[in-house]
């Protein structure tokens, strides 16, 4: 027990002495929170719009007003003479062009159709998709309300559950916690163990009377502690500063956080046993843990939209399961039963990784 404490103390000192690393670990999620809270809005607003109004009638001006008043578009160019949409897009004056043909107003009164053209710069496909939908709806609903052209246009009402304002920070906080845990537990542990190997201090510890189990526990516990501490702080800031909801049971979240932390630690150990230098450990940890946790976990990019081979690949990414669990608990108060398809694979993955990594670590040590 005393030897265990000594190892833990040594490891904790290592962590605490490196103020710069600690600062970044702590700052990164906070700045991401700030950015997601204030800067990154997924609901598009103020899309730059260039208008070529060849009609220049009262009707056409009212249509333009409908665009600017919607809040979705900001007028950056208003021309009555022809404009070249290619040039507008290439000079990045606007991302969308609305072209109203001559005779638009007159033809409406006569009940004929005069098609309005709406062009988007689809080199940004997401903006183009959403802008196109907005434009279609603005034009149609304006015509319907103004001229009663076809009263059969349906009235679609929508109701958003769990995140009525569609705020991305609500969605992002759980993801940040998952990435943070990976960063501390997998990345930092693999680096420290690799460093002890590279500088030869691991051998010095081995010749001391410390037992293998004590080394493993003593080295890993401080990282778990640090990760939990920072995780709690981030969640508290998210709740009290950014107003993120927490409707589920904190105890349940704590239990599965520990499972996930163990899983991350196991990956960290596994990487460290296979590499010889810190540099390789870091790169491997980045590729094996950090990137999948961000890209393949459903953190920002929906798994359902990925092609099948990639979707299969996501099943071995622990963050995938943890994200659903933490989101379920924080935002929806999900029960154990509802989360069973996440809990079971996560626990299995953790168990397998722990067994394999500890066995490998023992052979490395002996």
């Amino acid at each position, binding site marked *: 027990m005393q030897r265990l404490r000594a190892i833990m103390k040594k490891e904790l000192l290592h962590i605490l002495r490196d103020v710069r*690393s600690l600062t*970044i670990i702590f*700052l990164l999620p906070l*700045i*991401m929170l700030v950015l997601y809270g204030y*800067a990154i809005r*997924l*609901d*598009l607003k103020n899309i730059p719009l260039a208008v070529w109004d060849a009609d220049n009638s009262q009707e056409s001006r009212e249509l333009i007003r409908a665009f600017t008043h919607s809040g979705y578009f900001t007028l950056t160019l208003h021309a009555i003479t022809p404009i070249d949409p290619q040039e507008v897009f*290439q000079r990045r004056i606007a*991302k969308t062009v609305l072209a109203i043909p001559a005779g638009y107003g007159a033809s409406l009164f006569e009940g004929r159709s005069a*098609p*309005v*053209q*709406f062009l*988007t710069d*689809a080199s940004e496909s*997401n903006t183009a998709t*959403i802008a196109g*939908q907005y434009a*279609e709806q603005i*034009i*149609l609903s304006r015509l319907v309300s103004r001229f009663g052209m076809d*009263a*059969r*246009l*349906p*009235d*679609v*009402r*929508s*109701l*958003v*559950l*769990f*995140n009525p304002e*569609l705020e*991305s920070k609500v*969605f992002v906080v759980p993801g940040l916690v998952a990435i943070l845990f990976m960063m501390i537990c997998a990345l930092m542990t693999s*680096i420290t163990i690799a460093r002890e190997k590279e500088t030869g201090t691991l051998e010095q510890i081995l010749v001391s009377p410390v037992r293998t189990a004590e080394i493993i526990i003593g080295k890993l516990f401080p990282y778990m502690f640090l990760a939990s501490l920072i995780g709690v702080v981030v969640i508290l800031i998210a709740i009290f500063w950014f107003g993120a909801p927490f409707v589920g049971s904190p105890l349940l979240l704590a239990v599965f956080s520990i499972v996930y932390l163990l899983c991350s630690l196991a990956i960290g150990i596994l990487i460290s046993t296979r*590499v*010889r*230098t*810190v*540099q*390789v450990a*870091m*790169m*491997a940890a*980045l*590729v094996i843990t*950090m990137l999948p946790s961000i*890209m*393949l976990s*459903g953190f*920002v*990019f*929906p798994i359902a939209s990925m*092609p099948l081979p990639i979707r299969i690949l996501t099943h071995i990414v622990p963050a995938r399961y943890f994200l659903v669990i933490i989101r379920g608990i924080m935002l929806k108060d*999900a029960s154990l039963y509802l989360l069973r398809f996440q809990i079971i694979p996560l626990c299995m993955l953790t168990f397998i990784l722990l067994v394999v990594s500890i066995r490998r670590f023992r052979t490395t040590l002996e």
Partner: protein
Amino acid sequence: MTRILHMIRKEFLQIFSDRAMLSIIFGMPIIQLFVLGYAITTDVTNVTIAIHDMDRSQESRMLIDRFLNSKWFRVVEYDSDLVRRQAVIDTGDALLTVSIPEGFGADSENGRAPEASLVIDGVDSNTALIAAGYARTIIMRHFQEAGTGDLRDLVRVRALYNPALESRFTIVPGIIALLMTIVATLLTALGLVREREIGTLEQLNVTPIHPLQLILGKIIPFAVLGAIAFGLSMTVAIVWFEVPMTGSWTALALFTGVYLLTALAMGMFVSTVTSTQQQALFLAWFILIMSVLMSGFMFPISNMPRVLQYVTYGIPLRYYITALREIMLKGTEMRYLLDQLMPLSGICVAILAISAGLVHKRS
């Protein structure tokens, strides 16, 4: 000059003797490009949807057919009452429900506005927003196309440069820019810090080599590697992902050269303010994440609050991603890209000057 050459030779020997490192330098960008090219998608497809049809008329069935035949949605449940409307969302079985009330078909036949309602799981706000938009579009189009010819022709939406609206075309150039940053910034930073951490930097300092020669000798090999990684990624992007390359290769090479230099300078900067490889990694990672979020790679800059829009002017990745997309997808000419090249070059010179100054001070 020969000193620099010796330095370069030493660096290359070091890189090539470490098999693991070598496979990381060349393997990582390629694998990432493949996986990320598919994984990072803002297209929303296969959204799980539950339909509650209380009308069960011909009209409602025709509408449902549209949902069944759309690639945007995967219908997981079909019911004729509302009992499970909340439950399917709670359990996560469906992300979206569409309810068609009784009298829907009759209303549309009698010329009254029929009603339909959507319930959306808003947790993933982006997917929710786009999926709801799609659902609304499907319902609108159904009536638009069933309606008089007048209504059908009222608006024509056309997407230029990417008519199929594939997010791949937007994302892949962005990933290339990101990979360049990873290779150039991270590896340079790590290479320099490593020498300091294991003490060989002091050995180099007592040799007659000048600090600037040392830096150049360190940087040139990574510039070469960065250029090779760029070539490989471009090949994958064009051959495999079929991203169009409509613009001028000269302009592309010019921007890539300036950006590569900027990324290397950032690596140098990171190495001068950190003392262990772990710190260097964390700082480089920090810069990378900030660049990804603030460069317009995923999130349009025009959508951010004004104050933060000014912040993005200081992020070199912003200009490079814009240039890559403009040149590859839109074939934009150089004269329209000068407003990107100028600030990028300015930032490049500034970072180079700062980090060269810091290197001088530390050695």
